[in-house]
């Protein structure tokens, strides 16, 4: 099977690094792409489940823009909805009725939602959720999960990161995932000062196996927190609308007080939403939180088209089925080559790891070999399925995986 080269990507990167710190920063930084020469850095074309890099290499994309692409790139209905609204009015000096329509749609679709607030990125609403929790409880402390990610604002970054000061973490308490005893201890130690608990619906850290909630975990969490007068916040930025159209909490059978959505909500258009219960409406109204682009209506129109299409397609079920087909196939092919592939997390956004070494180097090399053959896999982060992936895509991907395992065998 032919493998790709990335000469033009590299040339662009040489220009980038002179003009932009890191060249490409944040979660798009090439730093975790190992081996680096297996990955493209720049693309200007994407359609359906594929993108083409600046060298013209074609990829079946299993990162889906790290989540926002859920129906396929350049989805005609979503793009048409965006364009129609954008031509009519996007940025404006007053809000668009579109915002109300989208809020009403979320209230109908998400059982917990009795109101909705919109912003641009996931961190906008994770920050807001914490502010609402503090405002509603008059308490300071937030409990979060070790290794959990809720954006890059200082309070959410790990200690030691540049630009973060110890005081940023003064009121943040991290506990292990699925550890009810640790939660009880924190409540015992700080009960009167705990504003809320924030976590993703299941634990999906980077560089580590993902973990689903243990039976009864969320039910105990909500019971303990509510009994303590504290709020439960679900950060559904990454998983929202991939696992369940009513919010991932519906899949796991519990009711939080606040849910943060972004990524898949508008199929790539910039939008995030915080939804909450009636009891928090007044507190949410009192918190001042805004941004220059938070009222741009095009993204809101795109979100309505995206959510409607996802509902019609039964998107979460479809992505789970595609993910199962993909991961079952990879596990089988890996075994045929003498490797053990471990699959964790939810099938719509699975995390895979070869367990035959203790340093992820096999996994890195294999993902690199797959990417060089046209299946864009990263080794450090969960992958994403979309409704644009087809069974033929999966079949072709499995051929790539097979060839990549052969290459891996030859390297060893």
């Amino acid at each position, binding site marked *: 099977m032919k493998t790709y080269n990335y000469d033009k990507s590299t040339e662009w990167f040489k220009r980038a690094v002179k003009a932009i*710190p890191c060249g490409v920063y944040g979660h798009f930084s090439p730093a975790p792409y190992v081996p*680096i020469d297996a990955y493209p850095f720049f693309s200007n074309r994407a359609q359906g489940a594929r993108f083409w890099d600046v060298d013209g290499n074609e990829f079946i994309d299993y990162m889906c823009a790290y989540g926002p692409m859920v129906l396929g790139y350049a989805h005609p209905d979503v793009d048409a909805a965006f364009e129609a609204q954008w031509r009519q009015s996007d940025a404006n000096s007053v809000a668009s009725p579109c915002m109300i329509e989208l809020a009403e749609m979320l209230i109908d679709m998400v059982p917990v939602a009795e109101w909705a607030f919109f912003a641009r990125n996931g961190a906008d609403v994770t920050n807001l959720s914490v502010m609402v929790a503090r405002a509603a409880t008059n308490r300071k402390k937030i409990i979060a999960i070790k290794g959990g990610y809720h954006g890059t604002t200082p309070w959410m970054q790990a200690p030691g990161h540049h630009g973060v000061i110890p005081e940023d973490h003064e009121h943040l308490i991290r506990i292990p995932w699925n550890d009810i005893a640790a939660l009880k201890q924190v409540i015992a130690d700080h009960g009167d000062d705990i504003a809320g608990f924030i976590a993703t619906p299941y634990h999906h850290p980077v560089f580590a196996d993902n973990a689903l909630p243990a039976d009864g975990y969320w039910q105990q969490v909500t019971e303990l927190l509510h009994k303590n007068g504290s709020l439960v916040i679900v950060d559904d930025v990454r998983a929202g609308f991939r696992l369940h159209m009513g919010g991932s909490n519906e899949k796991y059978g519990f009711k939080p007080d606040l849910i943060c959505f972004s990524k898949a909500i508008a199929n790539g258009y910039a939008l995030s939403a915080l939804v909450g219960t009636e009891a928090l409406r007044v507190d949410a109204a009192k918190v001042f939180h805004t941004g220059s682009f938070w009222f741009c209506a095009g993204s809101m129109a795109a979100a309505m088209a995206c959510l409607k299409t996802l509902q019609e397609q039964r998107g979460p079920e479809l992505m789970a089925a595609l993910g199962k087909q993909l991961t079952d196939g990879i596990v089988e092919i890996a075994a045929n080559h003498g490797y053990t592939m471990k699959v964790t997390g939810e099938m719509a956004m699975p995390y895979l790891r070869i367990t035959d070494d203790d340093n992820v180097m096999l996994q890195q090399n294999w993902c690199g070999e797959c990417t060089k053959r046209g299946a864009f896999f990263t080794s450090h982060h969960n992958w994403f399925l979309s409704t644009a992936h087809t069974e033929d895509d999966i079949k072709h991907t499995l051929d790539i995986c097979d060839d990549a395992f052969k290459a891996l065998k030859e390297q060893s």
Partner: protein
Amino acid sequence: MIQDTLKARLNLNAVLRNLEVLPTLDEKAAEIIRDWSVSIRFRIRGDIAPRLAFSNGKCTYAPDAVDPADILLFLWSPAHLNAMFDNKANPIPLKGFSKLGFLKNAFPKITERLEYFLKPDEAALRDPDYVRVNIALSLYTGVFAVCELAQFDPIASQVIQQMPPGTLQLSVLPDGPEAHIVYDGQGHATAFRGAAKNPTASIAFRDRTIASRLFNGQLDGFGAVALGDIKLKGLIPLIDNTNLILDRIPLYLQ
């Protein structure tokens, strides 16, 4: 207080420790110590008392040795030791009075040679032979500094708590130097010169020029990774977090 303690440990366990390898890297250093046969202990009141020994053209540094030394230098505090390193105070000799001449006249020659290689100027960095020694000493200082920072620096000690167990190897290609740090996953690190048998993660610098530019603050590390000048492999969180700890060094050592 912690600032002084940590700086003292860095001065001894990360910087002065380089005297073990300097003579193997630099002919002038080897010449300086060739005929020395003497041992020195630096005893900081209430703290560590490492021993430095010169014999048969070699130097050994033992951070926690109990063997007696020919010369015993007493420091009232970590701050006193740091002042000595900054040439602003003298130690109090408790033993080895007949060797005070050595301490005053001979010993500074090797520490000055060490300082010369660890504090480069632009002209020096144009000399490939200087760069070879500077890189090795900078790498070794860094890995040993990580162990001290992880123990005493308030931020680094939080960072190491987040790290999984594993061994991080750092290599300058094609032929070294190399060093590695073993993390126990419980907040402790141990550093070694040379290659690891089975690293969990690795950083490899394409050549000495790349390593030198990075160590001396002239290179965007992220950009260098993307261009393949620095190759990362394995458990990347070990690398990310080690970088965060290494970035604390300038807070204590200039």
